[in-house]
């Protein structure tokens, strides 16, 4: 897709009118993700229930349209998913921007699949993956800077 079309059809909407931008009350986990090469900076907040289902999520911060839109699309996908499913989405998204995903994997990413062309632009891959990597650090590695599930080394 021509890049201006990608912006017009998908990215601008998620960047200018994001569904999940803001703060939530009593998140389970909060984590700051930064992309030093362009100053993208997001705070991802997730709420998980006792069965490790992501029941809600939001992000805050500033950055380029690709980073913001990608985080918003990610939350569209993972809210309502289990922790394992959310991490599987992240794996598929990472494969997609590394050009190693199967067509089925890409299709399963729904709107986020529109960012496939980013794989040809190494300079933008970091923008597109910022939210996803932050989510991986939270759900896979247990990193958190606040919320009711603070990571504190075994307590």
């Amino acid at each position: 897709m021509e890049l201006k079309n990608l912006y017009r059809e998908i990215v601008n909407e998620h960047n200018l009118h994001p569904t999940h931008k803001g703060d939530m009350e009593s998140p389970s986990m909060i984590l700051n993700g930064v992309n030093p090469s362009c100053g993208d900076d997001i705070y991802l907040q997730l709420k998980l229930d006792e069965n490790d289902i992501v029941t809600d999520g939001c992000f805050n911060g500033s950055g380029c349209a690709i980073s913001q839109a990608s985080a918003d699309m990610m939350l569209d996908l993972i809210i309502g998913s289990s922790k394992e499913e959310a991490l599987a989405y992240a794996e598929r998204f990472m494969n997609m921007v590394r050009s190693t995903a199967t067509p089925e994997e890409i299709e399963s990413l729904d709107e986020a699949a529109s960012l496939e062309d980013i794989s040809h632009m190494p300079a933008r891959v970091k923008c597109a993956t910022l939210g996803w990597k932050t989510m991986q650090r939270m759900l896979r590695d247990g990193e958190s800077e606040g919320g009711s599930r603070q990571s504190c080394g075994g307590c």
Partner: protein
Amino acid sequence: MDVNLIRRDFPILADNPEYIYFDNAATSQRPVQVLEAIENFYRTTNANPLRGLYEWSVGATDIYEKSRHAMAGFIGAEHDEEIIFVRNATEALNLVAYSYGLNNLHEGDEILITVMEHHSDILPWQMVARSTGAVLKYIEPEDDGIITEENLKSCVTEKTKLIGMALVSNVLGVKNPVKLAAELVHANGGVMVADGAQGVPHMKVDVKEIGADFLAFSGHKMLGPMGIGALYGRMELLEKMPPFLSGGEMIEYVKRDSATYAELPHKFEAGTVNAAGAAGMAAAAEYLNSIGFDAIEEQENKVTKIVYEGLKSIPYVHVYGSDDVTKHSGIVTFNIDGCHPHDISTVLDDEHIAVRAGHHCAQPLMEFMQERLKMEFRATARASVYFYNTEEEAERFVEAVKKVRGWLGYGA
């Protein structure tokens, strides 16, 4: 100077008339004369220079040393041995930091640099400061990027033993007061390290006139190939400095536990050198001289004026640096309300326009500008022109920038 004739010398420009290359501060394009000089080396006399005792190696040495002579003349060095070939300006600055800085700076000495230095003129000094106990201090410019005489004088103390300063900022295009800085640091018995990466391609530089003890510059920003650059160093300083890298062709005698080093400049050129690169860089210098820096600056200023004034006239666009376009050295750095620079660059790319976006390897300056000028993001977009860019390109560029907000989903 006829810019359309000039463009015929650059195959990539001649082959892509629709493409607007406005990222010359990152790297320039190369004319056929430079490409031929590189090819000529490999086609006619390729052998390892300086070592061999046969015709081709002698020929390779000849081309390499003639290139050194050309670079010495290009920046006004008195002796050819004062030119050390390196990979790029970054390596040149590291050479000075490791070889001069670590051996001549002491606890309590001050290293003074500007906040607009490229990371390659910041990190080596951070290393020297950490290792020697010297203190690294920064000069901050006015809002328009200018460092005034009073400001500079107030930052230099009797402890200032080294000043590092770009001739031209790679973000704001402003020319820095290197000559005054050299006078001030020399009064303390210190040295002036000039980063010429952005200055040498765009203006006539004479190391003796500006008083630089060291001058670092890259070939690739001045029409030469990538992977070759030069360090000028004053002979008396270079002679006392230890080698930066060690290995082949930089020695006199090597025993099992010790070695004595070769004479200048070979002491600083360990390993097989980039002779074809040096030949390309010398051809680039010759090309620039044949056009002349007066004509180069005139064309750059013509194009820059259209870019600068065009961007200034667009609502939502912020242009940084001096209001005087002749103080931009072809660089116009800008932002658009609500649009991250990366998105600006991405949508301009769809119009076949190449501009740089991000922090430009100058994060301390971005932080300074964000705080002082209330920038929305800690990043900017940058259009940088060279003498082969045209007024028509500048006009097309301005028209494209007018549309960026619309492409990014804003009403206007």
